[in-house]
């Protein structure tokens, strides 16, 4: 029974494909998967916008949207209709073609990221031999679209915003990829499906996820920080800032094109969270051995929603960084940590199992963390802030 529930979408797809003419079956099969991915993640986007606004509202001691539908949960429909009916203003000085292409390519690239994410058991669009490489390659295309958007508007603020965004994304791509390389080393494969399979199996009730190793824990932390920066989310939302550069690279976008940027940004965030889940949190595997009867795709989406909630929580809690802090954090803390973590993963891989391995690798992670942290904190004076007028 649980087996059927787990594979229900795969079975349904096979059944539907069986009705197609013989020559078109493979095309039809991919088409079905693409439609499923589009529908699932576009609706997740809709849900997330409400969740984010309500969550942030609660953190900031207000209600958030609560007028459209029950508890405001139909808000995304209202937003969608609004952005569709709004006037699409293109500045006269703008480079019209590039201005139009940028959001389209961004959303295309963001959707194609999902091609290599295993959403459930046997549920991946393309099991590529070089899946992780594909993910980062497509991710790098998104950087170019941001430049296209910022430059084609011919607005100095949007250009500055684009430059900021690209500088930030390039800086954080290095620790992001280095943190993923540890997993690739441990799994011995670049295929996302093989990486998830490598994390299968349980000791007692606990799973063999990579996050439960010293290097995996550090790698997951580094990956998530870099992922936050890569998806331009607070506290790394420097590319837009009302007081400095207004809305960054999408100032000159209005109406549905702006909605496309919004969609692309959120899709990028989901995709990179999905990659984090695949690499470190066992993909679609259940967290305890006695919970394996719950279908695999539900686990994937549960983990994804948990990640989204953490993203919202971080956004509501942390103040944003300054540009120089952002850069020095990337190059002076994240990069050395990621490189040392690579060494740790190598030591872990080639040392015999036992408590000694845990001790050595744990020290290899904790000591550099403390030392680097101390190094970064030098020159900081941390003391109780004295308010002159607010006491």
């Amino acid at each position, binding site marked *: 029974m649980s087996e059927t529930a787990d594979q229900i979408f795969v079975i349904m797809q096979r059944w539907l494909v069986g009705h197609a003419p013989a020559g078109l079956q493979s095309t039809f099969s991919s088409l079905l998967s693409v439609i499923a991915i589009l529908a699932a993640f576009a609706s997740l986007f809709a849900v997330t916008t409400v969740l984010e606004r309500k969550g942030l509202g609660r953190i900031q001691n207000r209600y958030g949207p609560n007028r459209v539908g029950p508890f405001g949960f139909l808000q995304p429909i209202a937003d969608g209709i609004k952005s569709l009916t709004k006037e699409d203003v293109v500045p006269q000085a703008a480079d019209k073609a590039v201005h139009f292409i940028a959001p389209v390519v961004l959303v295309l690239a963001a959707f194609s990221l999902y091609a290599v994410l295993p959403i459930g058991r046997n549920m991946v669009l393309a099991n590529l*031999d070089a899946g992780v490489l594909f993910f980062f390659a497509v991710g*790098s295309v998104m950087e170019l679209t941001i430049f296209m958007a910022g*430059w084609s508007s011919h607005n100095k603020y949007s250009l500055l915003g684009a430059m900021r965004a690209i500088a930030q994304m*390039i800086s954080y791509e290095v620790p992001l990829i280095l943190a993923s390389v540890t997993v690739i080393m441990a799994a011995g494969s*670049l295929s996302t499906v093989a990486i998830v399979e490598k994390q299968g199996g349980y000791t007692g009730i606990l799973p063999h996820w990579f996050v439960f190793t010293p290097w995996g824990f550090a790698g997951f932390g580094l990956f998530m920080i870099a992922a936050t920066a890569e998806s331009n989310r607070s506290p790394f939302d420097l590319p837009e800032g009302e007081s400095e550069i207004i809305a960054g690279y999408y100032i000159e976008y209005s109406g549905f094109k702006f909605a496309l940027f919004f969609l692309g940004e959120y899709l990028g965030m989901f995709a990179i969270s999905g990659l984090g889940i695949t690499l470190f949190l066992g993909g679609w595997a259940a967290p305890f051995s006695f919970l394996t009867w719950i279908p695999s795709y539900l686990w994937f989406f549960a983990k994804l929603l948990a990640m989204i909630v953490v993203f919202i929580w971080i956004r509501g809690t942390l103040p944003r960084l300054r540009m120089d802090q952002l850069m020095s954090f990337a190059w002076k803390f994240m990069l050395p940590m990621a490189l040392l973590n690579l060494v740790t993963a190598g030591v872990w891989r080639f040392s015999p199992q036992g408590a000694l391995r845990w001790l050595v690798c744990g020290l290899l992670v904790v000591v550099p963390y403390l030392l680097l942290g101390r190094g970064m904190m030098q020159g900081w004076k941390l003391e109780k802030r004295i308010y002159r007028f607010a006491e």
Partner: protein
Amino acid sequence: MFTIFAILTVAGAVAAMSLRDLVHSVLALTLAFSGLAAVYLLLGAQFIGFAQILVYIGAVAILIVFAILLTRDKGATSQSIFGSFWIGSITVVLAIVAILARVILSSAVTRPIAPPQPEATMQQIGNALMLRFVLPLEIVGLLLTAALIGAVTIAMREEQETR
């Protein structure tokens, strides 16, 4: 399929040379790069195909764009895209094309018996890089690190002078 991507690549390259606006040229160049990547993927070389996208679109194109934006602020140039030496250039180009055509026509590729297609999986590339070619890889790494440090040193010295 090959024809489509070949046309895309060539069209991108031609556009990169002939467009007036430098940024447009870069965007056309990325089109050529991605067409090339698609050709690699068609040949079954996944690693090279994706590495092409990652390195050329993700890094080289962005680098060129930064270089353009930091060095000049004028948009399109008004002068003709043909320089004054175009007759000389065309002779040189024709000579190179003739030499290349001669070499290609006399090479093994055009002979009717095709060699067995090598299957290069990710695993094999990794093994080859880490076992047989590990020394060249390390040397390349060292060289790039040296270049990186050199670039940073040059940048730092300039900053001191301007102060």
